[in-house]
């Protein structure tokens, strides 16, 4: 049974877009916590929550697909809100902040190479 690893975006403008097929999807965790060490070396941790982010990378991305992604990125600022991202396979449907990597332009502008986005979830998971 094939897995549904699509990333479906409800943009700040209200349209629904599916991100182009990516090469890697990486789940990142960023716990808000502090490790403390006592006089005898005992470790304990104060934590607030665990924040999750998703890194989506493309080895090569068509310029038109890049533009689609870039539009979503720009709309964050234009509409002053995050887009909503759904990954059916993992039951995720959350608003996330999109950060984008550098745009490495290749082949007369037709291909963007080694491009990635990081989607940081608006709300912590715990």
């Amino acid at each position, binding site marked *: 049974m094939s897995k549904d690893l699509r990333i479906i975006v409800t943009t700040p403008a209200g349209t629904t877009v599916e991100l182009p097929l990516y090469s890697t999807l990486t789940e990142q965790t960023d716990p808000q916590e*502090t490790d*403390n060490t*006592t*006089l*005898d070396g*005992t470790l304990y*941790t*104060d*934590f*607030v929550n665990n924040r999750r982010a998703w890194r989506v990378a493309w080895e090569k991305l068509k310029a038109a697909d890049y533009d689609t992604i870039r539009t979503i990125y720009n709309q964050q600022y234009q509409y002053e809100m995050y887009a909503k991202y759904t990954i059916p396979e993992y039951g995720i449907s959350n608003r996330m902040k999109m950060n984008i990597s550098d745009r490495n332009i290749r082949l007369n502008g037709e291909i963007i190479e080694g491009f990635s986005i990081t989607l940081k979830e608006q709300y912590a998971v715990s």
Partner: protein
Amino acid sequence: MQSVSSQFTARANGTMRPLSWRLLMSFPKAFQADVDFFTIGVSTIGGTDIIKGEGNVIQEWDKYQYDDYSYRVMSIEVTRQEEMVNSVSTAMADIKLANYDSYFTPDAGSVIDNFILPYRPSRLYLGFGHEDIPVFTGLTEKMPTIDDKSKTASFHLIDFMYSLFNRPLDETILLQNVSTDAALETLMDAAGILPTQYDFDYGYNIINFVYFEKGTKFGDAVKELMEAEMGRFYMDEAGVIRFKNRQNFSSTPVAYFDKSNTIAVKTMTQDDIINVVEIKANVREVQAKQKYWELQSATRIPAGTSVDIWADFNDPVTSVDTPVYIASATTSAFTTNKLEDGSGDPVASNVSVLATRFAKSYLMTFTNTNTFDVYITTIELWATPAKIVKQIYLRESDAASVDEYDERVLTIENDFINNSGDAYSKAHIILDDWSTYGRANEMTVKGNPALQIGDAIGCTINGYEGTYVISKIVNRFVGSQFTQILSVKERVFKTYFTIGVSTIGGTDVIAP
């Protein structure tokens, strides 16, 4: 120590500690007088009624309508400190809030724009998991400090005691033969604090004569009473004003610290040492009614006019008889004459007096409705003055400590210490607690917000072993870290003699 659940304590001592915090502020200061304790079946969830906590008292500050700003908190630091000797505690807090939308920036169009003002009621809570407990109840002191670069707003908060302490008394207070708690209750009443807002122990110190002049700051009055009582006066974390008498200390540690739950420890400086205590007191007692003041020279009252004559007293007086025209020898009287030297005709009619008594002065307004000038030639005032009947001077020292550190003198001048026995006991309590070096430490610990000033803690770290009392707590919450810094003082606990419990010849000592 504040009452918390066993789960709260387990989390405080645990290895993975989920921090929680809450900030409530009332910028509009909307007041709801009908706030009550939450009653199942009557109160509504999300309504204004409050959950009954440790204190069985609804405070006036419980009745403000607060908004929850927890989601904007970037840092919280609450400092609670007890002043040495007079044992009055106050608290302050600093909070930094996210201000990305200029919500707290004055004149920036925020919905609270008109309410970004000093003295906004604020409450802070810290804890673990879903259980947070009050750590501060007070007011913003000033306008916020806005940092446009980091998009933050910082507020300095003071507890309600700060504002109360700076309030001047608008009437003179004279009391006789009162205990500390009775004197405090009178002060509270004068400051407009309702009996439902405080919880006092009874006081051991009985004061012959309490005198606070109009304009005395409330805080100065309380500190003087506490210095004599050697009790503790503070507003607790939930906003209840409390007085604990000098025997209301528990020597049983509420928490123990060793190397596994202490991050740093250091000894405070020898500047804290006291090895000589001087106590000076002027004991006043109200005297029987007596002739207390006389007019020094005749005063002319022109026809159809009034003249004020002030009598200034050396002592406060609890009563003054209103002077009457030539009366008996045991009450206040005045005489009049047509001539200054009294050789003319006396004037028996149409001269009246209106008198107002102040603590140390007396205003007499004489009115002459005759068609000729009249001289007030004599006035005698009979009053009940509170005179100094005894002066106490006592100097006690710890010889061993003086040999080692030279004299480090604490001088207490307090007229509410009324006998030499009390003075002796107080001096030795202070010497017991303060004459030795290294018995005051600052400890950074794996903190528990439930710890309070006055709690006893046990320490088993080499070189610091002992039972200490917390005199200062700093609770710091920044980002994802809760740090607690305790200033602790080793205390000599004594069991005081109790009739029916202690045995004569036993170890219990007579209470000061």
